[in-house]
């Protein structure tokens, strides 16, 4: 397709709304279906980086509660959660296991209805699954009978979008996540990190303005994980999407996010909404700065206090 793209993919990938970058000739990314949404977006986002601006609510979680009832047993998973997320923001959600982080993701994705409160996406109440939220699950969830490219194209087929138009985009996304040349491989031939990259490409391919990531790197080794964090930051900066990133790891949360939402153990409540104002793009060395350490310490302290039984030794708990 584009021979130059392999040598210098970062500069060439027009993932951001079209108005941001210089005009591209023969743009493979111009897809008829998304024209409306795109222009609307870039108008709202304006400027050189979407998140720096609008203040428009991308995602509102209002007074959301979730109680699971099974027989006489009921579990209070989420307790009056209020979160407002602006367009283009990167939000991390941290908390101990079982604080309802993944439940929150399922509610936003419209996979389950909340038992209380409501969720709005771009000003519209969530009533069921919707195509403006892309999801990256804890495990890659790739279908073993489809090639990597076919897996990335799955949302396009299910949403009945123009297959041929999005194929080029799928290939560019695979280049972006470092899987160029693996289009025809099958998922089981890839390493865990590569599989998760393919899953990210799949979540990005249909232009959902919101990307939800549920502990996507939990199963990866520490080095791959750091590398993936740097890459997610780059992908986010170039795509201008609103990202909600759920994680166990406090350093990961601080490294990636504009805001870190700290949640308490069950029932999940928002303990703190912490703004991280460290400059971007952040590199791995920024994890050594005093500011970074201060944020990490603060969050760790909060979680330690909340989890009275858990004690202070955080090597024993899994954040």
């Amino acid at each position: 397709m584009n021979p130059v793209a392999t040598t210098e993919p970062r500069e060439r990938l027009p993932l951001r709304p079209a108005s941001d970058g210089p005009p591209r000739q023969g743009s493979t990314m111009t897809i008829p279906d998304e024209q409306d949404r795109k222009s609307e977006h870039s108008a709202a986002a304006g400027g050189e980086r979407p998140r720096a601006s609008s203040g428009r609510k991308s995602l509102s979680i209002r007074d959301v509660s979730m109680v699971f009832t099974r027989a006489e047993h009921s579990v209070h998973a989420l307790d009056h959660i209020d979160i407002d997320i602006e367009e283009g923001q990167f939000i991390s959600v941290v908390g101990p296991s079982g604080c309802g982080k993944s439940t929150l993701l399922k509610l936003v994705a419209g996979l389950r209805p909340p038992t209380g409160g409501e969720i709005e996406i771009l000003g519209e109440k969530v009533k069921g699954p919707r195509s403006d939220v892309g999801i990256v699950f804890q495990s890659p969830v790739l279908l073993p009978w489809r090639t990597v490219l076919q897996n990335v194209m799955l949302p396009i087929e299910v949403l009945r979008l123009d297959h041929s138009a999005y194929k080029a985009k799928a290939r560019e996304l695979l280049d972006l996540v470092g899987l160029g040349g693996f289009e025809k491989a099958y998922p089981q031939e890839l390493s865990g990190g590569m599989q998760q990259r393919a899953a990210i490409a799949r979540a990005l391919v249909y232009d959902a303005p919101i990307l939800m990531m549920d502990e996507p790197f939990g199963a990866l080794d520490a080095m791959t994980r750091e590398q993936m964090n740097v890459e997610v930051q780059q992908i986010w900066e170039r795509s201008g999407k609103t990202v909600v990133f759920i994680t166990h790891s406090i350093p990961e949360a601080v490294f990636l996010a504009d805001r870190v939402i700290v949640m308490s153990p069950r029932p999940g409540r928002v303990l703190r909404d912490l703004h991280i104002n460290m400059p971007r793009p952040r590199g791995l060395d920024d994890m050594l700065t005093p500011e970074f350490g201060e944020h990490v310490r603060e969050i760790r302290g909060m979680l330690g206090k909340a989890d009275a039984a858990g004690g202070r030794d955080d090597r024993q708990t899994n954040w």
Partner: protein
Amino acid sequence: MTDRPIGEVEILGAPTEEASGSGVSWERFGLPIFVLFALMGSWEGIVRFLEIPGYILPPPTAIIRAFVSGFLTGAFIPDLAVTAFQAVFGFLIGSFIGLSLGVIIVLFPTMERIIYPYVVALQTVPKVALAPLLVVWFGFGMTSKVIVVALVSLFPVLVNVIAGLRSVDQERLDLLGALSATRWQIFWYLRFPNSLPYFFAGLNTAVVLSVIGAIVGEFVGATQGIGFRILQANYNLDIAGAFALFMVLSLLGLTLHGTLKFIERRTVFWTATQTTH
């Protein structure tokens, strides 16, 4: 056909046997062939030494002679064709019905309560008991045998298809659910491909049963086919001929099984690589 098991042996034996070189191929081919000849040789020796008459236990050489001449004179061919046709045709019909019923039962859960009891009831009746009735209804021709085979093949396919269509990961369902996939899309993109390895497991059981089904049908009442010839050979005390016909049946079963494995490895290619991880 057997290249996979052999490959596994090679991997297992590699660290110790690779150095000696010939050791690997001796264990792979030499030893089994040696054991085969030793068994045949002692069989032959015992029969000759004890002077056991041919109508009780024929020596291997007599069986091989009957087997070879059966093919050379062309005597086996028409009967083999009849039995093979009955087995394959009945197997195809039975598998198709099993697959269709499985899909219907999973897609429309109310159908399970209506259909499934009959299927289980049918399965608990031995097909040997049904075969005479089917011969009365459909005659001595091939139809009655095809129906017996279809009935035998149906159940393993049905049970496996239902299991395969249902055992779908919740995460994969969520993935498609989050894209607001319809029930049909979930079926085509997820449930159906997911059920294929199970479907083939059912087919593998069914294909072996199909040969048995054809023979059972022929035993009850037929004018041609390998099963019919076995009965004839027994009446004539041509035990070497009967053994030769058993070999023909084994060959038929192996060929069908091998063909199916061949198709399976190309259709559900992902399962082989998955299990190695």
